[in-house]
């Protein structure tokens, strides 16, 4: 009897400890965001008042209206949305296309080509960003959205991710489809894509978050004001109105919202994507 009591008490203590540690860590992760939102609703003079007032008594919603006039945030939003959409679609189409051949077709040079892709996965962009920039200058693709889209759409990572998933689809299914008279293109469209929703979700999410958050690419490539992305606009806000913390925080909050929304709805896919491949570009 006392043995059992001891055991249940010990496991209760353990559970409490685990929850305490997790709540503490969650707290550390959330505090910066909580402070950001709280500061975004304050008057500038109150932002750094101490002790911290977490819920301002007179929330300054105006901060969220004024930021759009100070820096062309909306232009940034539209530009980023455009870049994100086109990059993601182009990447999804071309990499699933290539991945099908790498996974399911036999042809000369397949393994060599695939090795070429795999080898470049671990080479970071920083290694070749300089010559890439010079090439893009020759093509006349600097300061253009097309340039950024093309640079980001053909990643080795995308092909690799789709191929790994395609390999797991049984060949018997493909053979049956071939006997039914489907062409290879038909198999890709009617069989592979519908069966690969998890991989497609992972690729879309990866591409979306990368493109939405990318800072260095647009910083190096985009110089004209009307082409700049949301991250550049946020940065511009931060440097031009560096003493206006309340509104900087409002702009930061606004810039975070799209990814947050996506994450709330698709968090399962985010997590599964990380867990299954454990790889990201």
């Amino acid at each position, binding site marked *: 009897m006392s043995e059992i009591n001891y055991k249940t008490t010990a496991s209760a203590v353990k559970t409490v400890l685990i929850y305490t*540690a*997790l709540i503490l*860590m*969650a707290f*550390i*992760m959330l505090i*910066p*965001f909580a*402070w*950001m939102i709280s*500061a975004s609703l304050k008057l500038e003079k109150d932002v750094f008042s*101490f002790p911290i007032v977490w819920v301002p008594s007179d929330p300054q919603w105006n901060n969220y209206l004024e930021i759009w006039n100070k820096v062309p945030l909306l232009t940034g939003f539209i530009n980023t949305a455009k870049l994100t959409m086109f990059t993601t679609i182009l990447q999804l*189409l*071309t990499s699933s*296309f*290539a991945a099908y*051949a*790498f996974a399911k077709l*036999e042809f000369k040079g397949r393994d060599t*080509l695939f090795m070429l892709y795999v080898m*470049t996965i*671990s*080479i*970071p*962009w*920083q*290694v*070749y*960003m*300089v*010559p*890439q*920039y010079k*090439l893009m200058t020759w093509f006349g693709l600097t300061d253009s959205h097309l340039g950024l889209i*093309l640079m980001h759409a*053909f*990643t*080795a990572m995308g*092909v690799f991710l789709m191929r790994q998933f395609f390999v797991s689809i049984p060949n018997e299914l493909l053979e049956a489809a071939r006997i039914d008279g489907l062409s290879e293109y038909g198999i890709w469209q009617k069989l592979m894509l519908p069966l690969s929703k998890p991989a497609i979700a992972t690729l879309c999410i990866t591409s979306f978050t990368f493109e939405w*958050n990318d*800072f*260095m690419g647009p*910083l*190096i490539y985009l110089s004209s004001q009307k082409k700049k992305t949301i991250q550049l606009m*946020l*940065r511009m806000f*931060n440097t031009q109105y560096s003493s206006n*913390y309340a509104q900087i*925080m409002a702009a*930061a*909050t606004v*810039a975070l919202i799209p*990814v*947050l929304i996506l*994450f709330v709805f698709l968090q399962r896919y*985010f*997590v599964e994507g*990380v*867990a299954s491949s*454990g790889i990201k570009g």
Partner: protein
Amino acid sequence: MSKDNSQIKKTKPLARKKTLVAYSFILPNLIGFLIFTFIPIVFSLLLSFCEWDSGNPIKFVGLKNFIVMFTKDSSFWIALKNTLYYTIVTVPVTMAFALFLAILMNKPLKGRVFFRSVLFFPYIASLVAVAVVWMALFNPDRGPVNSLLLAVGITNPPRWAASTTWAMPTIIGLTVWKGMGYYMIVYLAALQGVSAELYEAASLDGANKWKQFLHITWPSVTPTTFFILMMLMVSTFKSYDTMYITTQGGPGEATKVLAYHIYNSAFVSSKFGYASAVAMVLFGIIMVVTLIQFKGEKKFTSYL
């Protein structure tokens, strides 16, 4: 022989058609990949042996860039040292947090999805946005962190990003905070693959939690540890956006890292050849690290 020939002739058109179809699948991606990734990589290697500033044509200079880098460029050595500092602290701290959190989460808990989401979210949050918040929190004069430190009686709190000593730790803090949730999930996936029976057997044998960790958990996740180690090291070696956004490599050159040096040499000083040479050094370091870990992984995980 003749039979073989006819066989080949028969299958050839079919094989050729197959190959054509296969290439039609690959080409759209391959062309883009070759132009925008592969050629720049090869070009980078060639460019590192050349001198090229914005006005003048490319000139082959042999090893000059590397000689200048190793003997005359003090910025390079500072950047290399800072990169190592950043990597050596960030990598183990992130891994320790990630594994610790994964072990905590590897149980049927209430609110598991909530905790997982909260811990993971900073990883996908925009760096510009979170860096801005981080810099405000750690503002040396007015930030809440220093207000708190003053309030608890620390009269001379660190000046964080404004101090040459504390700037790097501040950036490391931001990096660890932002990244650990991602690696936690990778670890969590590995832990879920460890059979519960092993733990049951061990606890029947009287092994305590620490022993169980040492003899079951740790060896089981070794391949994952190597994988995370490699990913983290590559990601810290190449990182410079955090430094660009928070400190611009300063104060002085306290947070200037190798990738930042590449960026500056190319896009500020217009020394494209020299920048590529520094990039080759970065590439070399990453290759060596990858190879060592490849070998290490084979050696240390073979007993499983």
